[in-house]
């Protein structure tokens, strides 16, 4: 009997840990981008490597949680939803990790005027991810808080769209930069916007799943 309670606690711990890993990766990404824009590439590479490790850890945790949910026939009603949530959150982390690897490989060069705007874009996009983590946590533990977090994700996603657009307009108005470089930079702006977009998708899912769970 007690082992059932212990196992439940263990699994709860694993889910928390999984979400912590996503959060940590998001913060690490932000920090790495700061170093990148400052030109401190050594420090940037360290952060990039760490994000990669975190991504691997999150994958392992997710598989473990999913296996347990199925093997022990837990949450028969909400199992599908929980699974979808875990996988979609993990997808967001994958995009974060892929993006930082792209920076490390392609090393896009930003004109100095854009730097602060780009950092602003990084901030709002990753804040959307942080809120996404809070939303998923609320789905597991406190359904009443879900709505507030989803509203915040939506705000950050819109913000990232706005900042992204501004950067692109500024970029393509400039005549002293090659078109190839412009397109190269635009790709990275789009990467960051995608992060916020995907975080918003997770938020939307949680909203629906919450209605299902509110008896």
């Amino acid at each position: 009997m007690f082992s059932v309670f212990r196992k439940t606690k263990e699994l709860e711990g694993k889910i928390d840990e999984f979400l912590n890993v996503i959060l940590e990766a998001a913060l690490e990404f932000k920090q790495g981008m700061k170093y990148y824009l400052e030109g401190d590439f050594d420090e940037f590479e360290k952060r990039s490597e760490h994000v990669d490790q975190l991504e691997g850890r999150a994958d392992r945790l997710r598989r473990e949680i999913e296996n347990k949910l199925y093997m022990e026939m837990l949450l028969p009603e909400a199992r599908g939803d929980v699974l979808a949530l875990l996988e979609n959150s993990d997808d967001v982390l994958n995009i974060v990790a892929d993006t930082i690897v792209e920076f490390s490989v392609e090393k896009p060069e930003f004109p100095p005027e854009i730097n602060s705007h780009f950092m602003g874009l990084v901030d709002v996009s990753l804040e959307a991810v942080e809120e996404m983590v809070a939303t998923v946590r609320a789905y597991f533990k406190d359904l009443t808080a879900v709505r507030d977090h989803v509203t915040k994700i939506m705000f950050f996603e819109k913000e990232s769209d706005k900042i992204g657009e501004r950067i692109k307009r500024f970029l393509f108005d400039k005549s002293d930069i090659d078109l190839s470089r412009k397109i190269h930079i635009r790709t990275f702006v789009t990467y960051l916007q995608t992060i916020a977009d995907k975080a918003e998708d997770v938020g939307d899912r949680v909203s629906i799943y919450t209605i299902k769970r509110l008896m």
Partner: protein
Amino acid sequence: MTCFYLTSGLFLGWSLGANDAANVFGTAVGTKMVRFKLAAMVASIFVILGAVISGAGAAHTLGKLGSVNALGGSFTVALAASLTVSWMTKLGLPVSTTQAIVGAIVGWDFFSGALVDTDALTKIVSTWGISPLLTAFFSFLLFKLTRWSLRAIKMHILEMDLNTRLALILIGAFGAYSLGANNIANVMGVFVTANPFPDVNILGILTLTGKQLLFLIGGIAIAVGIYSYSYRVMKTVGSDLFKLSPIAALIVVFSESIVLFIFASQKLEHFLIRMNLPTIPLVPVSSSQAVVGGVIGIAFAKGGGRAINFKVLTRIFWGWIVTPLTAGVISFFALFFMQNVFQQKVYEPISYVVSEAVYEKLGDMDIRDPGLGVLKGKVFRNGRRFKKALKSLTKLSSGKINEVIEIAEIDSLKIDSIVASEKLNPHWFTYAQLKALKSLHGRVFAHKWQLVDALAELSEEWRFRENTRKNRPYNQELKKKYEKLFEVFRISRMREKHNELHELMGL
């Protein structure tokens, strides 16, 4: 032969287990929150416990409606009920064992000429309407309460899952217990008066009365129904009929169990009496209809009264009329065939007479009417004819007429002190009671009240107390003891030998 007669009751029990266990564990198993094996085990154990420990209350009310007093009759009545249930299930009509058995018993009443106890009938029929309403009320309240507290507690989804499973099993156990306690009356109630089983003692620790043994066998039949067939029904209930979240299902089952329990519990009745509160009749109710009430309660709590399918409600309402009628008609004709084609005895005729002693007794009770003098000495072979005669010849009120019928009923009781020592439990009967009884050794009584009077004269402990609310449990207990005496000392063959009886009564 006895075993054969029981088969129709066992079949009824089997179909009850197959169908109604789903009302307790349906959603739990259908949504895979609880495994069928575990659900079936818990349901079986608690159905049997409920039947044996608390089954007597509702069975008593059913017995009052018609005390089917020959095994052949019990067999036929239960068979008529089970045929009705299977036939209507096949037609896809909502059916409840309770309604079928009540119809079948009334059919027997008509066939045997016994009197229909209108009080008991009204009590039973009104409960059919009240039980879904009451379940709706409980589920409404419990739903609001649960929703409020769950939002306040903020439980993790996994803990909630675990707690819901545990609660589904615990409340399922309570539900199965209540189902056994309340519905065993449907399965075995008609066999109580003609019960073939003696009391048994198990290893000197536990004594099961004949009635409890009967209920145990009925409970086992229900358990067999649960194991053999209920899985299919549970899958349907859990996935098709009403889609409920496990927690909502839990509330429905809990409300339904409370209702089944309060309509079955004698302990609760005694408690209400002690608290000076109005009591609840102990009546078998339909668990399926209680469940429908519970779901409606939840719909209202969610603010979705519009979502209620009124077609379902109308069908249930028609079920209340069609089921008992069908069962009554089948029962009547089946009894006719049993008696005339298969030459089986389906009832013990009960005769009535206004003898000198009866006339005097009625005078003592202040029941006087010139018509009674005209009836003096005439023997009536069945209750309905006697009642008709009383109605046409006397000017007594219907309450008084019922009293006359009770006093005039011919019985044949012979007190035997050896039988008393063998069959009466000395822990239940007091020393003074047994002593008074044994001193009547050899005496024969033609009416129940004569034995009651004789015993009351000998010992204070055989006297009924003043009819106040406080004394009601005491009087009920004493009445049960008297009923046991009538059962133990009745010489059934004597009833047929009218001549001997007539001599005995000085006719």
